[in-house]
């Protein structure tokens, strides 16, 4: 690491420590904290107000259990200091049973405004209209993308897409229905894209982006030809190989040749949006994410001890911490594993690469192994 980067890393750590102290004070003070955390405070064997002075002190908390987010009353998550403000509720899961809920006042806007600063104007022009080719319904992503677009001066077009129905169709093994539903989504997107709305930017899930590019080609056009210059996408499906495939086969080359720039992101309803270092062919399309510190932090921790960081380049479980005035999550083990990466000049704190679903011991279903084709 250069001296400059060393200094940046040190500054970022100090900022994170100060921010941690401030957020813990907010969430555990009787006048500002949420009913949930004030209630939890009584269960802790330490006083967060006096014993949490920096980020490392968060290890004193037990791991956050996302099951706590299931069911009501959802108001218990609203800090007293923010009471009375217009409040959204966003959900995750919910194909069966009660979904997990998170209340939001303006975090989604702040997160995506920060993300907006990382987008190159050449490919995400200010004032351009956007297409949101992703889930609709009670999702943070849908409103966040719309806000990102509006923040940059554009108007966002959306489609109807119910991810809970998609999950049900897959579980039922209705693969023909799944294909038809994908077509239904792509038809909506192509209708909007070809209706003269001057759309230049879009969010798309990896699968839908793939389908959209193919659908456009079947109609004799392409993403560049239809005017798309900037795409952001995300999720564990967003792998180096998938990125290479998009660049080489869907876009027609790197941004300087095809005019299409794509940036990966990693995030969820709890954290916000982790941004990627630049992804290039020279770097074998390696994707390294850095959380939006100090509002959130990601760590790669030992599979055996969630308080122990793995070494750089080593594999572990992704641990997430959220530190905003709206939400405090002191260490949540994501369902993903990854490699720990060193700080980067643009993001002088640890990153994560190779994010993929956590492969714990296989949950063996005997019925899956009773086939014996000859």
């Amino acid at each position, binding site marked *: 690491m250069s001296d400059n980067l060393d200094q940046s890393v040190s500054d970022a750590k100090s900022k994170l420590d100060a921010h941690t102290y401030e957020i813990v004070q907010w969430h555990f003070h009787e006048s500002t904290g949420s009913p949930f955390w004030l209630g939890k405070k009584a269960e802790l064997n330490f006083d967060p107000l006096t014993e949490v002075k920096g980020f490392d002190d968060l290890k004193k908390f037990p791991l956050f259990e996302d099951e706590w987010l299931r069911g009501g009353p959802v108001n218990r998550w609203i800090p007293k200091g923010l009471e009375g403000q217009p409040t959204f509720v966003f959900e995750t899961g919910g194909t069966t049973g009660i979904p997990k809920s998170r209340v939001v006042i303006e975090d989604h806007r702040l997160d995506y405004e920060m993300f907006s600063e990382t987008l190159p104007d050449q490919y995400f022009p200010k004032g351009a209209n956007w297409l949101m080719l992703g889930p609709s319904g009670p999702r943070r992503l849908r409103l966040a993308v719309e806000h990102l677009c509006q923040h940059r001066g554009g108007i966002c077009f959306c489609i109807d897409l119910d991810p809970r129905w998609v999950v049900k169709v897959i579980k039922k093994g209705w*693969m023909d229905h799944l294909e038809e539903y994908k077509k239904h989504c792509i038809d909506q997107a192509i209708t909007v894209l070809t209706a003269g709305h001057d759309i230049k930017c879009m969010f798309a899930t990896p699968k839908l982006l*793939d389908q959209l590019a193919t659908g456009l080609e079947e109609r004799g056009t392409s993403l560049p030809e239809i005017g798309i210059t900037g795409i952001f996408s995300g999720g564990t499906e967003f792998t180096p*190989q998938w990125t290479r495939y998009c660049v080489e086969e869907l876009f027609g080359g790197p941004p300087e040749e095809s005019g299409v720039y794509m940036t990966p992101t990693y995030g969820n309803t709890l954290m916000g949006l982790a941004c990627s270092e630049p992804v290039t062919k020279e770097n074998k399309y390696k994707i390294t994410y850095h959380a939006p510190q100090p509002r959130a932090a990601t760590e790669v921790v030992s599979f055996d001890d969630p308080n122990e960081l793995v070494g750089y380049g080593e594999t572990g479980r992704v641990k997430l911490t959220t530190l905003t005035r709206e939400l405090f999550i002191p260490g949540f083990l994501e369902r993903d594993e990854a490699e720990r990466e060193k700080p980067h000049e643009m993001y002088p704190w640890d990153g994560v690469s190779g994010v993929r679903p956590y492969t714990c011991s296989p949950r*063996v279903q005997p019925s*899956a*192994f*009773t086939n*014996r*084709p*000859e």
Partner: protein
Amino acid sequence: MVNIPVIRWGEEYESLETQELVHHSTGDVIGTQSMANGGLITRDMRKAQTARDILKQFSIEELVEKMGKAGDLFVNGNLSIGGSEQTPQDFILQQSATTGLPEHMVELGMSKNAFVMNNMGRIIDALTRGLPLDILSNGWGKEARGIPVSYQCQTPILAAVLPSNSPGVHTLWLPAVPLQIGLVLKPGQKEPWTPYRMFAAMVAAGIPKEIWCLYPGSGAEIGSAVLSKCKRSMIFGSKQTVDNYKGNPRVQAHGPGFSKILIGDDCVDNWEEYIDIIVESIYVNGGRGCINTSSIWASRHTEEIAQALAEKLGPIEALPPTDPNAGLAAFTIDGMATAIWDSIKDDLDEDGVTHVTGQYGDRLVEKELCGYIRPTIVHCKSPENAIAQKEYMFPFASVVECPEDKMLTSIGETLVCTGITNNESLRNQLIDCTEIDRLNLGPVPTTKLNWLQPHEGNIIDFLFRNRAFQVPEELL
């Protein structure tokens, strides 16, 4: 170390995502394979017609001859796989290492595949019932009796989503190439060896590489891409997989066989005469195939039959794959053998079910990185016992006590049925029973295949449509 690439119409493509191919018992990495993403398939399939156009530059007879050569090369040749040379012995060691199959079974599987390749002309002649082959090439022709006949090809390529657990399945898609139809294969994650060696052998024998796509990758993503983009596909999987594709004319789904041996009342008193063919039907090829017997049905002497089978099969030990006497294949997925055995134990608790091989020691053999289950025979007092309808990927069978007149309404789906009876009425009922696919009348092992017979559907009917066709007299 072998590095297996994706093959896209004959061209190698190295993915940025790779998966290690690991020895099932030592954990040694013996190679890597590139992992395709679903989008590659969607794009490549737009050029599928080219594969058939290329193959139609050869006659079916020429392709049959090349297949014969490829069969010889498959068994005896040194072939280029993933940039390195593979001898036949390398192939045996590699396939055994990743699948857990004993080496001598791999060698036997090789010879089966080669037999089919060497006899492709006879096999196609049998499957087409002697149809002149130019009718398949041209789409129509004239029968000897002067009537026009048309077989319309339904797809330029045949796709197959292949399993890791049974190299024998490859014989099912082999006829596609001489029938001038290209191949799009998703190999099983632990068994890329046979498809890649077949590819190399066919190319070395003069069949253009451009008719091949090979996409190693995740079952869910690559499997669903293949099935959704190809007009005719084979898939090998569980009963649920088969049920999912039931009635779908684009997909031929192969799953568990639930193959059975039924002994009629007229023969059952002589049950000792049939023990050897029953043992063979249960045990051959490690009991992994859908043609292995999973239950034996009779109205009486069932406890004695179960005991006799247990005496023959119960003492069999799990031996290393290098041992020429090894008869069991390893379960190579961590925890799989234990999970299967736990499931069996639950069924053994049911009233009327007796585990007969327990007296020969523990069935479950857990190793550090893999597991085995030794041959297991259970006795069922009734067809209602849940385990009577189960099938597992090791030598396992239930001996089911059932009155003769209730058998055919109780057996359920049966890929291969051996009916041991001289009772004409029962024979006729067996012939008429639509639950049975392949029927053996008489003491024939369920595992004995005649390659000149269709297996689980005739591939000609799957790939071609026999339709009405009329032309003016002068064109005939």
